[in-house]
């Protein structure tokens, strides 16, 4: 469904809201076809980083490059054009529309013909197990289903990089495993690059090959899941300094 993955390069990314420094000098690379995770305590600046990559607001400093092309400061729809699909942590389905129409709108990005876009949307819905609920109004879905719908809509735009903002939150362990399996399979089949923000360590450890840890807007660690799990600074910020 996608045309391979794209490389993401983030350099010196920073964002200040008035006096508040939300993100400072964050840089990392996601190679094409990789699955990377962005973790950190609440308020660490993960979603802010996502929003800067996705173009919701321009960064105060730094650059974002997709496959070597600078996309810093582009509008979200242009970023989507460039090949980045995203989900929202606080889910944003089109509440009054059917599940199918939600995904159809995403599919219309690359497929201007409505009936062909509908076919594509149905395919994506089938993959995410939402096919039976396609006629339901999005606002009537349960939270886990809305999270799936977010993923489906993002995937329907046929991105080369998928930004997932806490799509496992609120899912039951079996549902988490299903989502992990789906994303893995998707990544293996299409080579789609995935960058995810996640608190569910079960998913992070199972999925990602590389983890970037943020705290107070700064990158404090980076490495393989095993290395991160042993990293003293990471344990400190996650568990508190007395916990070990």
């Amino acid at each position, binding site marked *: 469904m996608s045309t391979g993955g794209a490389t993401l390069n983030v350099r010196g990314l920073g964002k200040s809201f008035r006096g508040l420094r939300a993100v400072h000098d964050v840089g990392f690379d996601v190679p094409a076809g990789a699955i990377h995770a962005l973790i950190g305590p609440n308020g660490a600046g993960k979603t802010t980083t996502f929003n800067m990559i*996705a173009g*919701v607001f321009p960064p105060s400093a730094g650059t974002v490059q997709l496959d070597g092309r600078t996309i810093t400061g582009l*509008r*979200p*729809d242009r970023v*989507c*054009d460039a090949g980045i*699909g*995203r989900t*929202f942590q606080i889910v*944003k*389905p*089109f*509440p*009054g*529309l059917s599940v199918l*129409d939600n995904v*159809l*709108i*995403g599919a*219309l*990005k690359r497929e*201007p013909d*409505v*009936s062909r*876009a509908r076919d594509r949307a149905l395919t994506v819905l089938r993959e995410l197990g939402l096919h039976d609920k396609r006629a339901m109004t999005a606002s009537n879905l349960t939270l886990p289903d809305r999270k799936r719908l977010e993923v489906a*809509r*993002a995937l*329907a*735009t046929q991105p080369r990089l998928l930004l997932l903002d806490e799509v496992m939150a609120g899912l039951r362990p079996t549902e988490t495993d299903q989502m992990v399996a789906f994303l893995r399979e998707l990544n293996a089949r299409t080579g789609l690059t995935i960058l995810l923000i996640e608190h569910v360590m079960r998913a992070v450890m199972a999925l990602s090959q590389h983890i970037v840890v943020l705290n107070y807007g700064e990158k404090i660690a980076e490495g393989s899941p095993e290395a991160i799990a042993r990293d003293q600074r990471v344990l400190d910020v996650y568990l508190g300094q007395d916990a070990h």
Partner: protein
Amino acid sequence: MRLWHRLTGDMTTRGQVALAMFAALLLAAPAFIGSYPLSILILVVYFAYIGQAWNVMMGFAGQLSLGHALYLGLGGYTAAALAFHFGVSPWIGMIAGVLVAMLAGGIVGFLGFRFSLAGVYFALLTIAFAEFTRILFDHFKWVGGSAGLFLKVSGDPGLWHLRGGPVMFYYVILAMAALALVACRLMLTSRLGYHWLAIREDPEAAQASGVDVFRGKMIAVLISSGMAAVGGVWAALLQEPVPRDRLRHGPLDRGDPGADHRWPGHSDRTVHRRGRAGQPGRRLHHRRREDRRDLRCEDRGIEADLLRPRAARHRRLPPRRRLALARAQAGLRA
């Protein structure tokens, strides 16, 4: 077949039959109903059309415009002024009116959408534009200022001049409403329509799904204002006078109590007028007498009306007006 499916969507066969019967009923109505029910029906279909224009903006794209009377009025005034000053056919005037209204809609839309005015703030902007344009037109002598524009009686009524009886106007507006319905349905089931729905439901998510929100909103306001302008042209040329207040506030207005009896279908008078009816009291009566005098001098065609039995005319007037007219006829100053 595919087009048919797009038009009917999920409608059941029963629904389609019902719709066809309803359409047939509307088509046949003028043959069965009197002039008063017809005047009501004309109003109903007119508002169905205007509502469809408004629907593109609010219903589809979710942008609340409370100033659609601006586009209506600009459309009507442009066509009427061109017809009045240059004798241009209303059909050509309609094109000009649509362009003028779309320009206005484009300006309002650009200001609102470019600077991300949303919801009630955008609505306020639309009201502001409609209001100051109204005040501007109060002092715009070329189109008659606050008195409005008095269209001359056309020598040859007919579709080309958009002059004729209520039945003609009924069928024109019915055709417009049907066309608007079909056009809206086609737009809604197009890519653009889905983009509008996305913008209406959640602009941020729409943008993340690759929808150019600004562009979508601009197209909506342009189409909507253009459609409203066509309705305005129709209303301006309606055989009976359309009070300017009606054009100012459009479908959302309180309306003018003194104006209600002057809607279409009441008589076969051939005078076309849009005048101020702000004060439905003495001032209105006074002006209407004046109008009649002027028109009588200007155009002999009006005599047909004035020479009809007085009782017949009286019956169509509310009591206060009857008195005013009676006094005038007795040579008294009301």
